[in-house]
C-alpha cells in the first residue's frame, strides 16, 4: 500500500487532487484521453485547464449523447485507447445505463477474457445542496449489482489522487464517484504521482468500541461524530472501504472482530444500498463477532427533495450516525 505518512504538508482541494491524478496520467501515457460535455471548461473542475496543456484532441468536448459516448469508450478501449469520461453528474449514468451495465461491464466476460477495457467513468455525484431529485442521485448501489465494473469512491484529497491514478492504470472499466460535497474539501496531497490499490480499504480513525464503515461523503461525517463521542468515552473506529468493487471485506471483518459492533453509513438511498450489502455480508460471515444488531444509516427511501429542510430530513445527518452508534451500545 502507498505510504500514508505525507512528508510534504501540501494541502490542496479534493477536486485539484483528482485533476493532479488526471494530469499525471495524461502525461504518463499518451493513449489516455479525457472526454465529456464541456471538459474543456469543466463545471465541476476536475478537468479544468487540462485542454490547454494536452490539446482539444486529448481533452475533448462531446455532444449531449451520454449513451453513445459511454459506449464509444468500449470500442475505443478495445483497440488501444484508455478513455477517461467525465459524466459530470451521477444521475446521468441512467441515460447511458445500457452501454455501461450491459456493454462495458460485460464484454470482457462474454468474450471469454479476450479483451481488456481500460476505461474510467468519473463523475461528481450525490447531493450538493438543493440540486433536487435529478441531480442528487448516488448510483453506486445500482452499479455494485452489475458485475464487471470496479467502483471507487474516495473520501479525501489524498485518496482522490491516488485512486484516480490507479483507476486510469487499471485495465478494466472503473467507475470513479466523487461525492459532490467533497470537491471543496482540502487535505494533504503529495506532489508526486502515487497510487492506491483498488480494493484496499483504509482505517480513517482507530477505535475499539464500534466499527463505523463510512463511504464517500459519509466519512467526514462519521469522523466528526466519532470525535464528538470520544469526549463521552465512546471509541469509534472509522473504516473507509474507498473501493466498493472489489470491497475490502477482510478489513471490515477484522475491525468488527475487534469492536463487536457495526454501523454502516452510506450516502445513498437505503434499500439495496452498499450499507445493506455490507451489513448483510458481516451478518453472514461475522455473525458471531457481533455483540449487537448492526445498523445502517442511509437516505430515506425517497428521491432527494429540493427545499433545504426537506433535503436535510431525507439525507443522513450527524445525529442519525450518533443514534445508530448508541443503538449498538445500548
Amino acid at each position, binding site marked *: 500500500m502507498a505510504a500514508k505518512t505525507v512528508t510534504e504538508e501540501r494541502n490542496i482541494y479534493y477536486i485539484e487532487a483528482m485533476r493532479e491524478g488526471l494530469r499525471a496520467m495524461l502525461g504518463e501515457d499518451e493513449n489516455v484521453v479525457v472526454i465529456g*460535455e*464541456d471538459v474543456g471548461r469543466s463545471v465541476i473542475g476536475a478537468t479544468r485547464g487540462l485542454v490547454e496543456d494536452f490539446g482539444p484532441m486529448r481533452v475533448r468536448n462531446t455532444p449531449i*449523447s451520454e449513451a453513445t459516448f459511454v459506449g464509444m469508450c468500449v470500442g475505443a478501449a478495445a483497440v488501444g485507447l484508455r478513455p477517461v469520461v467525465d459524466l459530470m453528474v451521477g*444521475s446521468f449514468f441512467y441515460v447511458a445505463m445500457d452501454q455501461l451495465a450491459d456493454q462495458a461491464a460485460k464484454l470482457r466476460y462474454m468474450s471469454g477474457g479476450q479483451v481488456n477495457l481500460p476505461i474510467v467513468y468519473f463523475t461528481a455525484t450525490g447531493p450538493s445542496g*438543493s440540486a433536487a*431529485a435529478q441531480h442528487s442521485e448516488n448510483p453506486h448501489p445500482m452499479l455494485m449489482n452489475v458485475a464487471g465494473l470496479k467502483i471507487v469512491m474516495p473520501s479525501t484529497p489524498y485518496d482522490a489522487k491516488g485512486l484516480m491514478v490507479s483507476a486510469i492504470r487499471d485495465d478494466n472499466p472503473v467507475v470513479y464517484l466523487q461525492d459532490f460535497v467533497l470537491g471543496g474539501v482540502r487535505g494533504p496531497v503529495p506532489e508526486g504521482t502515487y497510487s492506491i490499490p483498488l480494493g484496499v480499504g483504509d482505517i480513517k480513525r482507530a477505535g475499539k468500541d464500534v466499527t463505523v464503515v463510512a463511504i464517500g461523503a459519509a466519512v467526514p461525517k462519521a469522523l466528526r461524530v466519532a470525535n464528538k463521542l470520544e469526549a463521552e468515552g465512546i471509541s469509534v473506529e472509522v473504516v473507509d472501504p474507498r473501493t466498493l468493487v472489489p470491497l475490502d471485506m477482510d478489513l471490515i471483518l477484522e475491525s468488527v472482530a475487534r469492536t463487536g459492533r457495526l454501523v454502516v453509513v452510506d450516502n445513498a438511498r437505503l434499500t439495496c444500498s452498499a450499507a445493506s450489502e455490507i451489513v448483510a455480508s458481516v451478518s453472514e460471515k461475522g455473525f458471531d463477532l457481533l455483540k449487537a444488531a448492526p445498523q445502517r444509516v442511509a437516505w430515506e*427511501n425517497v428521491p432527494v427533495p*429540493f427545499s433545504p429542510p*426537506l*433535503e436535510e430530513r431525507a439525507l443522513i445527518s450527524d445525529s442519525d450516525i450518533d443514534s445508530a452508534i448508541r443503538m449498538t451500545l445500548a
Partner: protein
Amino acid sequence: MTKTSAFDHLSQDDAIGMLRNMIRIRRFEEKLTVLFKRGKLPGFVHLYTGEEAIAVGACSALRTDDRITSTHRGHGHLIAKGARVDRMMAELFGRVDGYCRGKGGSMHIVSFDLSIIGTNGIVGGGIPIGTGSAWADRHLGRDNVTIVFFGDGASNQGVFFESMNIASVWGLPVIFVCENNGYTEWTPTSELTAGNIVDRAAPMGIPGESVDGNDVVAMRFAVERAVERARKGEGPTLIEAKSYRWNGHNEGEEAFAGAYRPEAEQAEWRERDPIVAFGERLVESEWLTREEWAAIDSDEQAQVDAAVEFAENSPFPDAEEALDHLFAPSKESA
C-alpha cells in the same frame, strides 16, 4: 377592437398580453439574478432572459388545456403557460406555497392544473413525456396538443429522434420546439451538432420550420400552423427557433466559464431584444402608447417584487413532508 392588421389575425388584446408576458418573464429572471448573487436561491438556476419570444409566442398559440413539457431552463415556459410568479418564486425559495410545496425547485416546477406536465433536469428528458401526453390525448379522442420545448444541445439526445419517429408513425399532436440559443452549456452548438437541427425532421416525414426566435409574432404564427395541423390529426411538427440567452448557462458560471462568448456577439443579440422589438412594433402600429408600455412594465415589476415578498413570507414545509408524496394512496382494497 383591432386598429391595424400589421399583425394579421392577432388581436390587440392578444398582442398586448404577449408583450406583458415577455416582460413578466424578463423581470422575473432579472430578479433571480439579483437574488442568486445575494445567496437567496438554493440549487442551480438557469435563466431564460433573451429568449422570451419563443415561450410566449409558442404558448400564446395554445389553449389552457393544451400541454407543454419543458427543460432545466423552464421559467419562461411556465410563465408563458400561465404560472403565477408568486408560487414560482415560493418554489424557488423551497417554500410550502411553491407549486411543488418546495420539493421540486427551479428545474422541476410543474403545475398539472395548467397542463404543464413536466420541466426536467435531464437534457432531453421531457421529449418522450410530451410525446406521451400527445399520444394519450389523441387516443382518448381529445383535440389537445402538446408542445415539447428543448434546447439545441438536447437535439443530440437519442430520445429526440426516437420521439419524432414514433410521433410521425402514430400521427401524434405534438410540436417539437427546439430553442437554439447557439450554445450547449459553454460550447458553441456548431462544434457538437451536425447540420441544421430543423433538417432532422424531414427524413421522419415531419414538416420542419425554422423561425426567428426573437420575433414573438413569427413564433406565434409558426406554432399556430403546427397546432392547426396537429388538432386536425395531421401529426407532429418540428420548429427550430433561433435565439440567444443573455445570461450565463447557469447563474454563477463566472466562477469557471471564462469569456466563452464574443462580446460583439452578445452585444448584437442584446440589440435585438425581443421585448423592445415587439413593443416598438406595437407602438408603431398604435396599439400601445409608450405610457401604457411603461405601465405594464412597472406593474410586472411590482408583481415580481410582491412575489419575492410572498415567497419570503411563505414557511418552509414541515421536514416530515420529505416522506410524503412518493406514492399515490392505494384505492385497492382487494
